[in-house]
């Protein structure tokens, strides 16, 4: 028997009972539709979530600078080195910071008055920084302003307080130019950071932030210990590789880079989480569909016993009978899969449109889902087909009319 004839016989068999075929197909249709919607919506939502994550967090890089091996020699990263970093394509903003050695317990107070009843000294982190820090850490100013390049170049003795630091020091406004004293050195408070943001360095919330020039003059705060970088979307992995070389061409291997996770990995993780439950639901639907196909195919075999007997009398071998019923059930599964895939894709597009998302669908899913439907049909038709093939022609002819 030729393959084309097998296909023709199977199609004719499927088409001979259109209503039953449609109902049989329903199981595969529902299963495949559920699967496609699940995987499509998961991919779309994953892309959406990852996209938002990219915008706020996946663009931040922290380069930690260890102490130079030779304390008498030049530092691994200089304050001026930031200029080289900012020249890299994909760097949106960057700032160097250096925290004052906390073992020295820098005493910070809001005024020079000594009240025996009040604990005025606070052990707060004191940070020297370049200008532009708020933009890098996504920080905002609740009061006043951040110091700029002018303050830095003039070695102005100004300070910006984190929200918590300001609260601890009792400073609530800056328009009257309050001062803070760090180890007895006075700095004029020109700004207070807001409590939100700071996603790249939350410790700044409790810190006293000084221009690195004045901090070096007055408090002997040395070279940067950390460089914070804000990149353009999608540039983080590249900048994470390039930044150490730009900052310290000779000793870049000693710098430690903390880069955000690869967005693709993150997206995969989100998809995995979302898929978990719903793929199971889709598979359950497919199994139910398969059982439906198996049942109906079995009933069809019973109804077509006479036809099976006739075919055997005309010279059909057992494998011809089995193949015909397998191709019929596979065809039902394939058609259900194709329609289910189409419906699923339409549903994903509609859901995305309603939510204002960009629909994301793996092409292999569109190609693979109908094949999965056909496979379900074939598996479901296996037992009925084998039963049909096992029928003795004499019994089949006697039973069927």
């Amino acid at each position, binding site marked *: *028997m030729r393959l084309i004839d097998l296909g023709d016989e199977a199609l004719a068999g499927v*088409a001979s009972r259109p209503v039953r075929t449609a109902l049989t197909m329903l199981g595969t249709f529902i299963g495949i539709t559920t699967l496609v919607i699940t995987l499509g919506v998961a991919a779309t939502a994953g892309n959406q979530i990852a996209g938002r994550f990219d915008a706020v967090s996946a663009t931040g890089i922290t380069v930690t600078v260890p102490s130079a091996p030779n304390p008498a020699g030049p530092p691994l990263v200089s304050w001026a080195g930031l200029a080289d970093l900012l020249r890299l394509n994909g760097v949106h903003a960057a700032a160097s910071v250096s925290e004052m050695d906390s073992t020295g317990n820098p005493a910070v107070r809001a005024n020079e008055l000594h009240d025996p009843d009040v604990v005025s000294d606070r052990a707060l982190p004191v940070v020297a920084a370049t200008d532009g820090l708020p933009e890098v850490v996504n920080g905002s100013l609740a009061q006043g302003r951040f110091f700029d390049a002018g303050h830095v170049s003039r070695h102005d003795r100004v300070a910006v307080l984190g929200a918590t630091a300001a609260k601890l020091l009792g400073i609530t406004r800056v328009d009257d130019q309050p001062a803070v004293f760090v180890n007895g050195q006075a700095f004029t408070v020109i700004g207070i950071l807001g409590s939100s943001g700071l996603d790249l360095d939350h410790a700044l919330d409790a810190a006293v932030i000084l221009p690195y020039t004045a901090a070096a003059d007055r408090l002997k705060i040395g070279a940067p210990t950390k460089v914070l970088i804000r990149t353009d979307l999608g540039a983080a992995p590249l900048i994470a590789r390039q930044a150490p070389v730009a900052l310290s061409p000779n000793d870049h291997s000693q710098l430690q880079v903390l880069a955000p996770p690869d967005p693709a990995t993150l997206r995969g993780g989100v998809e995995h989480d979302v898929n978990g439950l719903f793929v199971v639901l889709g598979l359950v639907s497919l199994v139910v569909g398969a059982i439906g196909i198996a049942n109906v195919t079995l009933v069809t075999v019973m109804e077509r016993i006479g*036809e099976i007997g006739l075919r*055997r009398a*005309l010279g059909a071998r057992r494998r011809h009978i089995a193949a015909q019923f397998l191709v019929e059930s596979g065809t039902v599964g394939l058609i259900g899969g194709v329609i289910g895939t189409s419906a699923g894709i339409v549903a994903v597009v509609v859901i995305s449109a309603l939510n204002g998302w960009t629909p994301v669908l793996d092409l292999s899913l569109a190609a693979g889902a109908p094949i999965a439907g056909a496979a379900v049909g074939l598996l479901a038709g296996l037992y009925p087909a084998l039963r049909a093939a096992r029928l003795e022609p004499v019994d089949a002819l006697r039973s069927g009319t």
Partner: protein
Amino acid sequence: MTDEVIKLAGVGRVFPADPPVRALSDVRLTVRRGEYVSIVGASGSGKSTLLNTLGLLDRPTSGSYQLDGVETAGLRDRQRTSLRGSRIGFVFQSFHLLSYRSAVDNVAMAELYGKADRKHRSERAAQVLDQVGLAHRKGFRPDKLSGGERQRVAIARALLGRPALLLCDEPTGNLDRVNTSGVLDLFDQLAADGVTLIVITHDEQVSRRAQRRVRIEDGRLCD
């Protein structure tokens, strides 16, 4: 090519039961090429078992059966199927036509499991339909045909592969007098053309149209 299309020697068929049912006993029958033989018997006489045996649809429990010179006793299922498909044409009482296929497609089915391609099958099927007087009905589905026409389609299907033997099981059992007469006339014509025919029937009138009559009683043949 042997002249004997069928040669049964001591064929018996016992169905396992309690007690065992002996459907055929020591059946001896030789049918030569071109013979028109009727096998007549009452209900339960073993007619159907003999037909199934002759049609290689069932295996005898004893004896020898040669079909067109081939001893069938030791054949495997696949070989029996191949022999059945190539040497025997069946005509059944209930026609056994596929309701979802046209007359010409039903006829062409006879060579579906052979090597002929679809175009050749369809051309041949149309020719044979013409031979049985149904050229004008070739596109009709069975439910649009009369009983006599359906049986003619079934006969055309049986003739398509030019079988060595045309085996007919109560071919007029579902037909009225007019259609019966038409089918029997067709058998006469086929016999005149040299087709080997065995008609199994309980109807004496039908059996009398054959050149040779064989009676079966309690599983035994008596001329």
